[in-house]
């Protein structure tokens, strides 16, 4: 089985180490001055917070550590942030944009 073949649903938890599959590209578009996620026959337009999360999806950091970093950076309670991070990453995993 190869990484592009998804046989079971990925469930995101605080311990997950999310990453982008190699065929998903988070790219800054200088012409439009914003970030895009390029996916098979789809282009997504992440908002600023989604970009910050996706930049940290490197297969190394856990969801918990991503939330910790963001809580620190934005001076917000980590309990609130982690729920948002999990729900966003779960949605993206269901769209095939994030793996873990």
């Amino acid at each position, binding site marked *: 089985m*190869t990484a592009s073949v*998804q046989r079971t649903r990925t469930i995101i938890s605080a311990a997950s180490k999310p990453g982008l599959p190699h*065929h998903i590209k988070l790219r800054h578009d200088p*012409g*439009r001055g914003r970030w895009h996620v390029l996916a098979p*026959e789809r282009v*997504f*337009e992440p*908002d600023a917070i989604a970009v910050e999360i996706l930049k940290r999806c490197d297969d190394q950091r856990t969801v918990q550590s991503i939330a910790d970093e963001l809580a620190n950076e934005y001076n917000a309670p980590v309990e609130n942030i982690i729920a948002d991070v999990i729900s966003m990453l779960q949605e993206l995993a269901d769209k*095939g944009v994030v793996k873990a």
Partner: protein
Amino acid sequence: MNEIAPLEHFADAPVEAACSRAPIGLLAELTHRCPLQCPYCSNPLELDRVNQELTTAEWQDIMRQAADLGILQIHLSGGEPTVRKDLEDIVEVAAKAGLYTNLITAGVTLTRDRLKKLKDLGLDHVQLSIQDVNEANAEKISAYKNGLAKKRELGKWVREFDMPLTINAPIHRHNIENLPAIIDFAVEMGAGRLEVAHIQYYAWALKNRAALMPSRAQVYKTNEIVEEAKVRLKGILVFDFVVPDYYAKTPKPCMGGWGRGIMNINPSGKVLPCHAAESVPGLEFDNVKTKRLADIWLKGQAFQMYRGPSWMKEPCKGCPRAEIDFGGCRCQAMAFTGDATNTDPACKFSPHHAAFVAAAEAESGVANPPNFLYRRLGGAKGSPDSAVETE
């Protein structure tokens, strides 16, 4: 995170902001040649011949221009794009220019070595069309022997090379009952996406409408099957559903709106707002041989003609959905009502809607539909007389 909504307020934006108004996608029809002869072929009635096709260097230049213009994704299509021996040279330049490259193929002419090479050169994604999962029926639809086995083999190579795969399944009365098996096939092939694409009846497909149209009950059943499968296969298979116009109440936002998100270049270099746009009279199509892509997109007569809401008349004019569905499809309005400025007959507010629905109901209600008019490059003049009838 939203899917992108391209090109807001196109007409108001300054020309210098070209990049912000660039199309998201470019459909590059590298050739009209195809080994298959599907009766619902989406290519225009008049096919470009091989000696009219753009050269390798011309396509490579288009890829560079597209990236400069701000286009993000290239859909390499046809006909069958792999019949061009220089596909690798085009993909290489597209990938180097930073474009997301998508190969749209029937999968019967591609070899393992070529696929590997395409991947190494930067091909991002493969979309594989299937005619059916029943071999005999697939042969009947495509007039091509042993196609399904070749597609299975391609699927195996795609998995071996760890490439993402979309299965595209055009749906009509001859395969609609097999939808559950088609979904299973997509999972078995390791696809991440499945397009359940009800046939869009333009161009050649319109000639075969009576042979292909499913019933309303069959169409509704496909909705149920897809909705159930979406839940069951959440996180495994993403579904794309191309709605069947004839049983709809509102039209689809064809191409995401005319001249808004997508441009199409045909094999001889004509730049079209959509692949069927040549069926709309009064449009002047520029060619990449004589003008720059950005210029054509921003100022080309064919793009400006139906861009935005200014061309609309009632019931589109003033309709709250005018900038949601953009009046639907110009080509369908032309084909069914004889006037491209009419609202798409798929819209319940169209005075032609009742006749549109009645045509589908009458044709799908016939127990023995007519034979297919197969699509052959030899029949490029578009006359049904030059097509081959079988069965």
